C-alpha cells in the first residue's frame, strides 16, 4: 500500500506523521487524506485545488500533475509552505 508522509505543521493537524492510503492517483490520495483529516484540507487545498507552495513529492520527485499514478511501494510526501536558508 502506498504511504503518505506528512511534515511540519501537517503532522499536528493530522495527528500523525504518516498514513497508509489506498487510492491510485495523487489527486485521489489527497482527497482521501482530506476526507480522513478535514483540518488538513484547509491547509493543503483551496477550492479543491492545491494551495500555492505546497510541495508534494512522489518518491522524492516533485509531483505537479495530480493525475500521476501512485503504485504499491510509492511514498508520497507532503510539505506545507516551508522555507530556510
Amino acid at each position, binding site marked *: 500500500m502506498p504511504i503518505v508522509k506528512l511534515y511540519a505543521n501537517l503532522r499536528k493537524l493530522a495527528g500523525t506523521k504518516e498514513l497508509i492510503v489506498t487510492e491510485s492517483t495523487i489527486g485521489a490520495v489527497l482527497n482521501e487524506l482530506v476526507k480522513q483529516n478535514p483540518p488538513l484540507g484547509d491547509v493543503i487545498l483551496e477550492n479543491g485545488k492545491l494551495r500555492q507552495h505546497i510541495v508534494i513529492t512522489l518518491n522524492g520527485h516533485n509531483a505537479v500533475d495530480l493525475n500521476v499514478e501512485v503504485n504499491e511501494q510509492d511514498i508520497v510526501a507532503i510539505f506545507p509552505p*516551508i522555507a530556510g536558508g
Partner: protein
Amino acid sequence: MAGWSEKVLDIDLNNKTYRTYPLDMEISRLFIGGRGLGARLLWDMVGPEVDALAPENVLIFTNGPLTATGYQTSNRFSVTTKSPLTGTVLDANSGGFWGMQFKKAGYDVMIVRGKSEKPVWIEIKNDVIAFHDASELWGMRVFALTEKLGQNNNKRNVLCIGPAGENLSRIASIMNDRERALARGGPGAVMGSKNLKAIVVEGKDRTEINDPEQFKFLLYETRKLLAASPLTSQALPEFGTVVLMNIMNNIGALATRNHQQTQFEGAEAISGEELTEKYLVKNSSCWACPIGCTRISKTDKAEGEGPEFESTWAFGAQCGIDDLPAIIEANMLCNDLGLDTISAGSTIACAMEMSENGYLDSDLRFGRADQLAPTLEAIAHRKDVGADLADGSLRLGTKYGHPELSMSAKGMEMPAYDPRGMQGQGLLYATSNRGGCHMRGNMVGPEVLGLPKLIDRFQVQGKSSFVTLHQNSSAAIDSLVICKFTNMGVADEYFARVLSAVTGIQYDTGEMIRVGERVWNLERMYNLREGFTSKDDTLPPRLLNDAPTDGPSKGWVVKLEPMLKEYYRGRGWDENGVPTPKKLADLGLAGL
C-alpha cells in the same frame, strides 16, 4: 542625503588613531552600501600583493541606507575583507542588533587598518572613539566577553572574536550580540591578526527618511505581505530553518558523510520537527523583524540561540551524526569559540573520511557525536588534530595528499544542498565569488520550494539564467542591507521602492538589481586580479563524476560544463569567464 549617514570612520591600529571623513556619494549611488560598498572600497585598498593575515589587509564594516530605518529586518550589516580561507574577496553578513547601533553611532563605514602591537578593543559612542587595552580579555570566550563588555541589545552592542580568531583559524568567525555570526571565510582570523578583540558601539542618531509617507505605506504593505505568506508567518517562526532537513533528504539532495551520499537515514532525528518538539524553548528575532526565525534551544547541558539548518546539517548528516542534543551543543560551542559551523562541521567530516581510510592518523569517525565538542575545542586552540583542522578542509586534505576529499569550492566548504540533486545549486557553488556558498544566490527557492515558481531541478538548459538572476538579486539585497527572508514574502520591487523612499534617489527595480550585477562583476574582477581563473569555477571531482547509487538523485552528477558555458555567455563574459570591456562599461566599471 537621507538614508546614508555619509560618514566614514577610518581606524589605524598601528598608532591607535582614527579619522572621520565624508562618504563618497558618487560611489554610494552605484554600490549603495553593505556588500556593494565594501567590495568597491576593498578594490582600492587591498591588492594581490597583500596576504590576508598581514596588517595591510583591512576589515571594512558597512551599513546601508536602509539600516536602522525600522523597515522590516533593517538590522543587518556586512564586513568585507580578503579571505584567509579562500584568498578571494569576502563579504560576510550578520543580523542581530550591532549593525543598527553602528548606524545610530553615525557611520556608514568603518575601516580597520594595520595591527595593534598589543591586544586592543575599541569603543564607539558616536563622536567619541576610545582604544582600550585588551590584554586581560585575550583568551576569553565570546559569551563571557560579550557580557563583560556590557551587552544590552538595544543600547550597547558587542562584536568580538573568540579563541579561534585569536589563534588565526582560517575558519574563525566574528561574533556579534553574543550569538550572531559573520561566519564564512575566516574574517575572525583577520581580526585576530590585527590583535583586535572587540568593537563595542553605542549610538544616538536617527536615520533620516526622505519620503516618510511613502515609507509608511511600504512598511504597512510589507507587514501585510509577511503576515500573509505562510513561509514568513508560520514555517519560519514555528520550525526555524531546520525545517528544510526533511524535505532536502526526501528529494535526495542532503549531502551525507562528506558528500558520499545524498540522503541521510537519520534526517528525521535531526529535523526541524524534532527540534521543535523536544528542544525548542521559544523563537526569537533580530531588531525590527516580525518573522522570528531564530531558535532558542535547550539541552541538558546548554541553552542558547540556534541551531540553524546548515549548522545542524554540518554536525549532523555531513558527519553521519543523528544525536540532536550533541549537535545543538556543538553549535553553541562554535558560537562561544567564534567558529563558522559549516566549515567546522564539513572539515571534521573530511577528517572523518580521511581517518577511516587511513590517510589521517586520528580516531575521528563518522557517527561519533562524542567527538564533536573536543574536536571543536582542539580546532579553536590549534591543539593536537585541531591544528590540522583549524585551517579548513582543503588545507587539511592537501597536507595529507587527498585534496579531492575537501568538499569545497575555491577553498570554502559547501553547505547542505548536494548539487547532484539540484543542478542550479551546483553552478552557484562553482561560480560564487566568495567560494562554495549558498547565500549568494540560493536556488532552493525555485528548484525545491517553488518560490516564486517551481523549476525542474534536474534541467540543465536555461538554468544559468536563474542562477545569474538570483546572484544579482542577492547581491543587491546584501547591499541595502536587509534579510533575504523578507524576500520570501516581499518581491524585489518593494525593496527598490523602499530604497527610493528612504534616500530620495529613484531606483527602479531593474536598476536595483543592476547594482547587484555591478557588485557581482566587481567581485569577479577582484578575484581575477588575485589570479583566479575559470579553472577555479569548479567543484570537487566527487560531484562531477560520482553519481549517487540510490535515492531520487540516483545517476546524476553535476553537469557543470554546459551550464558554465551558458552562464559565461549570459553574463556577457568571454569564454574564459572574464567580463568583457563592453559589459564593464555598461555597468559603469570601465575605470577598473
